[in-house]
C-alpha cells in the first residue's frame, strides 16, 4: 500500500471525512476542468535573462515560458501552470500574462477560478465564453472581457471558428479584495480611438472608460504610426507600469522593445513611448506594486 492510500485508509477509518471534506482522489469530480498539462517546451527552469536595472525589468520575448500542446500554443511572461521560474512570478499585482494561440474549434473546457481579476484581449479570431453565471458570449478582436472570479466560478473558452485559429492575451491581476461576488463584463472598443493615442480599456471605476476590475489598475492600448511619440503619466502614486509590445518595435525611454517583449518600470511618474515601426501596437498595464 503506498503512503497516500495508507493515510487515506487510516483517516476514513476515523470517520473524519463526512460530507465536508475531500481527500486524495476518493471524491471524483465530474466537472471537466482543464486537464493538467504535461510539461512541454522550454524555459521551465529559472533563466537569468531578466534584465533588472535600477527601476526596470526587461523580459525579452524569447525568454518567456513556452508550452506547445498542439491545439494550444502558449507563451507565459510569468510563471504559470507547469512553467515555474522563481524570477518570473509577477510584476506587482500583475500575475499572469499569457499569449495564447488556440486551434480552430478547440479550447479550454469547463474549469474553475476564484479570487482573481481575469482580463481577455482577443488579437485575432473569435473566442466563445460560457460561465456558471449564465453568460454566453463571443469576444472578438476589438473587444475586451473582464471577469472577477471572487468566491468562485466555472467557465469555458473555445475558439468559435472551425476554420481559423484565434489568438488572445489572457491577463490575471490579483484583486484588492478577496471573495467578491463573481461578475462578468465585456465591451466592444472603437479601434480608431487608439490610433496615435492611448485608449483606456480598463480602470477601477465602473463609470470610467473601458471595463472595470477590483484593483487600482489602468490598462491602455495604442496603435501608432512610425515615429509617433507620446507620454503616459501614471495615475496613482506607488503604481508601476508594465508595457507589452503586441506588434512592431518601440522605444520606452532609452530601452528598445520588439514584438512580444515586456518591460516593467516602477518608481516613476511617467514614461516616454516612441513607435519605431509602422502600425506598432502596445499594451500598457499600470498596476499597484504590492497587494
Amino acid at each position, binding site marked *: 500500500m503506498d503512503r*497516500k492510500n495508507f493515510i487515506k485508509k487510516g*483517516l476514513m477509518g476515523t470517520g*473524519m471525512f463526512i460530507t465536508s471534506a475531500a481527500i486524495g*482522489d476518493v471524491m471524483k469530480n465530474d*466537472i471537466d476542468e482543464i486537464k493538467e498539462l504535461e510539461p512541454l517546451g522550454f524555459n521551465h527552469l529559472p533563466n537569468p535573462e531578466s534584465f533588472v536595472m535600477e527601476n526596470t525589468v526587461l523580459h525579452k520575448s524569447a525568454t518567456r515560458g513556452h508550452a506547445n500542446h498542439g491545439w494550444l500554443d502558449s507563451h507565459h511572461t510569468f510563471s504559470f501552470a507547469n512553467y515555474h521560474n522563481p524570477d518570473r512570478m509577477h510584476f506587482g499585482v500583475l500575475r499572469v500574462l499569457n499569449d495564447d494561440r488556440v486551434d480552430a474549434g478547440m479550447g479550454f473546457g469547463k*474549469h474553475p477560478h476564484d*479570487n482573481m481579476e481575469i482580463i481577455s484581449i482577443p488579437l485575432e479570431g473569435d473566442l466563445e465564453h460560457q460561465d456558471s453565471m449564465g453568460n454566453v458570449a463571443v469576444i472578438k478582436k476589438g473587444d475586451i472581457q473582464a471577469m472577477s*472570479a471572487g468566491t468562485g466560478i466555472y467557465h469555458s473558452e473555445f475558439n468559435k471558428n472551425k476554420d481559423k485559429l484565434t489568438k488572445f492575451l489572457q491577463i490575471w491581476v490579483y484583486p484588492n479584495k478577496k471573495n467578491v461576488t463573481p461578475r462578468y463584463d465585456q465591451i466592444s472598443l472603437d479601434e480608431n480611438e487608439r490610433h496615435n493615442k492611448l485608449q483606456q480599456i480598463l480602470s477601477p471605476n465602473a463609470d470610467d472608460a473601458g471595463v472595470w476590475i477590483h484593483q487600482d489598475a489602468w490598462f491602455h492600448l495604442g496603435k501608432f504610426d512610425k515615429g509617433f511619440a507620446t507620454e503616459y503619466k501614471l495615475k496613482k502614486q506607488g503604481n508601476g507600469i508594465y508595457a507589452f509590445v503586441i506588434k512592431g518595435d518601440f522605444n520606452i525611454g532609452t530601452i528598445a522593445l520588439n514584438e512580444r517583449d515586456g518591460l516593467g518600470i516602477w518608481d516613476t511618474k511617467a514614461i516616454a513611448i516612441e513607435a519605431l515601426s509602422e502600425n506598432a501596437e502596445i499594451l500598457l498595464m499600470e498596476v499597484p506594486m504590492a497587494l
Partner: protein
Amino acid sequence: MLFIIMKNILYIGRHPEILETVVRLINNNEDWFGAGAETDETAMELFQSINFHIVLLGCGIEPESEEKLRTFFATTNPNCRIVQHYGGGSGLLKNEILSALENHNMV
C-alpha cells in the same frame, strides 16, 4: 539511496467543486499528498491528524475564520507554511506550492 519525502498539503475553501478540483490537482503530483476541508472544524481536525507542510487558504473564508485558522495552525505547527491560494485551479497552484517549498528549503 535517494529518499523523497512526501509533502502534505491541506486546502481549505468554501466552494465544494473548487475544493474537490484543487485537491485532485494536488494529488496528481506523486510527491504531494492533498487533503481538503470545507469547514474550519474539519480543517483543524485534519491538521491535528497529519503533519501538513503547507496549508492553502482558498475562496470564501471569512476574515474571522481566516484569523482563527492562521492562529491555530501557527500555534499547532509553526513550521507549516500558510499560503493564500489564488485562481481556483491549475493556473497558479503548482507555482504556489513550489514557491512555498522553496522558501522553506523543502524542495
